[in-house]
């Protein structure tokens, strides 16, 4: 298998934690809430899923529990930031620290243990095509994440629910005047985002690299937040961004495997460096950010 085939086959799986977490953050931000706690939400979901799968509870239960736990923690964020109108940046950081702390606390006795991942489901015919065939052989969670991406795109593009969420994020006062429950919509959006972050963490811990190590999320939650900016709040571009990061993290693996003389520390920091560079390129186009950005992002709502 050459490097290109390796990257094509593994890209979607590597992209899935980024994709799920970024989609969750997208929904919250569309409703006007900036939740910076994604790293902690993912870490909590990861440890919960790992413990359940390790104890023999199975992947389905593991994912469900991870989603529930992270949604619950994101509701703590919602109560403090939306209920008590605290600074969303500070609240998000606190949730991030708390989630990572809980993750380390619960995961302490599971350090370096492993579980079994999930089998690949191959699409007939397509997965036999040379070179790109690997793209069509993925585990069930990847397929479901792709479906979720399309579903979220459709909700924002074609349904009233999507319109209400965007109205609440664009102009909460106007949305309130039309009779929409601004705070309730924001709570729901944050909880949904939390659940997706939990799934993202679960995927990282029990499918992608099914081994427990403290700090295994390794900045992916932060990159997911950056992905929402890269994608200028558009589902399709966020998907492309997630694929890019999936490819980048695999490329560093491939480079190490082929014995390229690059330090492993440089390769480990590649995703962070790419984030910094792309963030600079996209953000310097102010018009692009204004066009799709969320007007009331991060601002507390008071009637």
């Amino acid at each position, binding site marked *: 298998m050459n490097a290109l085939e390796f990257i094509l086959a593994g890209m979607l799986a590597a992209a899935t934690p980024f994709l799920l977490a970024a989609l969750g953050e997208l929904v919250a931000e569309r409703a006007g809430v900036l939740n910076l706690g994604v790293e902690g939400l993912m870490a909590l979901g990861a440890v919960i899923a790992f413990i359940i799968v390790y104890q023999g509870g199975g992947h389905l239960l593991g994912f469900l529990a991870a989603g529930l736990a992270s949604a619950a923690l994101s509701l703590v964020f919602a109560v403090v930031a939306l209920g008590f109108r605290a600074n969303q940046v500070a609240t998000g*950081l606190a949730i991030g620290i*708390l989630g990572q702390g809980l993750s380390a606390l619960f995961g302490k006795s599971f350090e370096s243990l492993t579980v079994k991942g999930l089998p690949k489901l191959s699409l007939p015919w397509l997965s036999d095509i040379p070179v790109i065939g690997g793209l069509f052989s993925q585990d069930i969670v990847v397929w479901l994440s792709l479906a979720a991406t399309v579903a979220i795109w459709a909700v924002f593009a074609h349904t009233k629910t999507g319109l209400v969420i965007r109205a609440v994020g664009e102009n909460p006062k106007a949305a309130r005047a039309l009779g929409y429950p601004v705070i309730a919509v924001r709570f729901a959006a944050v909880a949904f985002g939390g659940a997706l972050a939990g799934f993202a963490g679960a995927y990282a811990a029990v499918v992608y690299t099914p081994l427990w190590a403290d700090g295994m999320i390794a900045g992916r939650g932060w990159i997911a937040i950056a992905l929402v900016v890269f994608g200028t709040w558009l589902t399709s571009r966020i998907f492309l961004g997630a694929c890019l990061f999936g490819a980048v993290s695999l490329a560093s693996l491939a480079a190490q495997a082929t014995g390229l003389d690059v330090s492993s520390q440089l390769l480990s920091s590649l995703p962070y460096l790419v984030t910094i560079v792309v963030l600079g390129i996209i953000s310097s186009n102010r018009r692009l950010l204004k066009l799709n950005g969320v007007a009331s992002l991060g601002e507390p709502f008071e009637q």
Partner: protein
Amino acid sequence: MSALSRPLLPVLVRREHASLTVKLVAPPVALGLATLLNLGLYLLMGRDPVAVFHAMLLEPFLSWASFSEVLLKTGPLLLIAQGLAIGFRAKVFNIGAEGQFILGAIFASAIPVWFPQATGQWIWPSMLVIGALGGALWASLTAFWRVKLNANEILVSLMLALVAAQLLNYLLLGPWKDPNGFNFPQSVMFQFDAMVPILIPGTRVNVSLLVACAFSLAAWLFMQRSFAGYKLQVGGLAPRAAGYAGFNEGRAIWLSLLVGGFAAGLAGAAEVAGPLGQLQRSISTGYGYAAIIVAYLGGLHPVGIVFSALLMAALYIGGDNAMVSANLPVAAVRVFQGSLLLAYLVAVAFVRYRLEWRHVARGSTP
């Protein structure tokens, strides 16, 4: 509408004047709340909450030996938090102080690593200066990205902190590894003149605590007494008004990040030239992130931050105690830190709001 369909609900109502009393009692209330929550958690984990409480929150203050260790940890937290608070008040969210701290440590270590034979009283002061410049240099990348490229400083500074951690690993596993260090990822031990002099004999508390106090005084003068500090705060509170008044936003961002990076770099330099005496992987136990909590808990005020830095330092020492005496994992300290900040953010909401019970029409939001 009948009373039945209008349930009695708690509603936050804006006060006419911000309450100074609440502002002063919010930190201790938050500490009490966080303590209760965490003791409950320890009980669930099957630990004796009374023993943990004693080890974590009382023991650090009960003996001179452990209190001197608290003072030692206060230094870096105080420095970093004072620097960050200046930026936070201008609404410039530098959350990558951890990276600036690491760069400060690396820059400072360059002198003893490259000139291990050098002697003279000039060495440790130059290390502090170079370390501070290294931190400011690392932060200047974030400032450039924010001012010139319009990029979000939260994300850029955090990414740079993750890069800094890898840079440290690279140096310690590669060019700066001690050849006689049994392959441990650490530099050579520094020579005597590369160490900050001890301040209180018999303890590890060194002169950098005085530096941190001096920096706190400077931060107070700058924020409360200078026009430049005033401009920064207006920029944070009312960006439009600051714009109309001709206050330069870009300059405020540069200033915030450079001061924050300078202080964090200084703290990093003081850590390697102080208690550690060498560059190692574990130079920071999350000081950069803990300092964010210290800054908020101190009300972003230079005086408040002195108290919150002491408290956070005590939590670190207490956490170590509890690990030994009550078998509590170190991660419990991070859980405590996170819940402490959350409790504070809830408590501080009552500075501007009060709680009222009202009949709220169904469908409307409280």
